[in-house]
């Protein structure tokens, strides 16, 4: 029996909670999935994010937002963090945290960029780099909920080594329940790759997306420039702007 998705509440008291690292997994040489135990976690919807706050011994503190990488699962929360060169927070999360160490986090937040498993519309997911994280939560939530709404993912990365979730995505695609995954490589591609290297364009979206008359719900996530380019293409292809949801990570990261 499919595990029922825990519905995330979009209202209710929002507090800073203490989360402790229980596991970490390498996604790429510079990205890690960090898994936290968060007592009292109220659950969340796929696509939502958390604010993470770190405090140093001298009281200095700073915050960043990270998308949740997996659907609600009790008090366990997964984030995938890209280590940014010279970043202030990301290197600590990817390499500085030991099992049992605490961080503070606030969430779940974000009601716009969410997918609900009871939505019958086909879904087009377009990810640029680290933008795959919230979309992966949606893909995993779809599987967990046992729904078969058609999902197509177009995932743009610089090189094959930059892909997150390679094995899980392959497994999920092989289930054969209506998930299709297409990659776009901008700098280096696997051997014998037929698509020329380069940024995502209308041809890629036409080839691997849904036609506008299918009226899909589109989620686009990644750096600001990527998201705005892709959203423009979708509108030019005839998709309803009201059915396009975007989340820009901004150029800062860190």
């Amino acid at each position: 029996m499919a595990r029922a998705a825990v519905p995330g509440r979009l209202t209710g008291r929002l507090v800073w909670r203490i989360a402790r690292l229980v596991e970490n997994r390498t996604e790429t040489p510079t990205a890690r999935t960090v898994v936290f135990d968060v007592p009292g976690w109220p659950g969340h919807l796929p696509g939502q994010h958390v604010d993470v706050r770190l405090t140093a011994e001298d009281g200095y503190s700073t915050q960043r937002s990270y998308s949740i990488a997996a659907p609600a699962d009790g008090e366990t929360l997964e984030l995938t963090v890209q280590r940014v060169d010279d970043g202030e927070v990301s290197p600590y999360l990817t390499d500085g945290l030991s099992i049992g160490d605490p961080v503070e986090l606030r969430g779940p937040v974000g009601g716009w960029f969410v997918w609900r498993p009871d939505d019958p519309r086909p879904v087009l997911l377009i990810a640029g780099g680290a933008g795959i994280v919230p979309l992966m939560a949606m893909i995993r939530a779809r599987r967990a909920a046992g729904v078969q709404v058609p999902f197509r993912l177009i995932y743009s990365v610089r090189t094959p080594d930059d892909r997150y979730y390679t094995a899980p995505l392959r497994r999920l695609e092989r289930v054969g329940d209506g998930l299709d995954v297409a990659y776009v490589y901008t700098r280096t591609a696997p051997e014998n790759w037929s698509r020329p290297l380069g940024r995502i364009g209308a041809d890629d979206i036409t080839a691997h997306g849904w036609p506008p008359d299918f009226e899909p719900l589109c989620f686009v996530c990644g750096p600001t420039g990527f998201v705005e380019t892709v959203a423009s293409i979708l509108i030019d292809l005839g998709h309803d702007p009201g059915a396009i949801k975007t989340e820009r990570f901004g150029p800062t990261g860190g």
Partner: protein
Amino acid sequence: MGIVSPGFRGRRRAERPNLPPGQYLTEDFPVLSAGPTPRIPLAEWEFVITTESGQAHRWSWSQLQELASETFTVDIHCVTKWSKLGTTWEGVSLDTLMRDVETAAEFALAYSYGGYTTNLPLEDLLDGKAWIAYRYDGDELAPEHGGPARLLVPHLYFWKSAKWVRGVQLLLGDEPGFWETLGYHDYGDPWREQRYQGD
């Protein structure tokens, strides 16, 4: 204070005795902005001081360049807690620009290309305390740091040093600017930690 995450250090910084309270030293030069970077062609750029009676004193870019400038080194303190010591600038002192301005005003509202504003007492622009700065660290002031020219008032928190400055309106009464209308202090002395209204 939040719980400490062991080993988290944050940006390379240190508290040093000659920093204002609550500040951390930075080696880089963070870019903070409330909006898109304006791009002003120098042929169209002007700086205007307008008195309380509406009398305007204007300088084009070339006129500004003809005025006596100073090169000076100051410490800067941002309300977001970073401080940068020993920054070197070149610019025209407000004393030079205000020399022929007749006014009874006690307050000033600096305004920028792009719409930013900030208020401060007029006396805090005078007596060697403020400049219209157009070079930083030996180079032309970069747009993301306020170029072609910014106001520089280093004895106050750096939000008073309006980037992309366009003019100063002299006023009989104080008028809060962009951040001051949203809770930030009308004066902003870092040494008295005047970050927010009421501090």
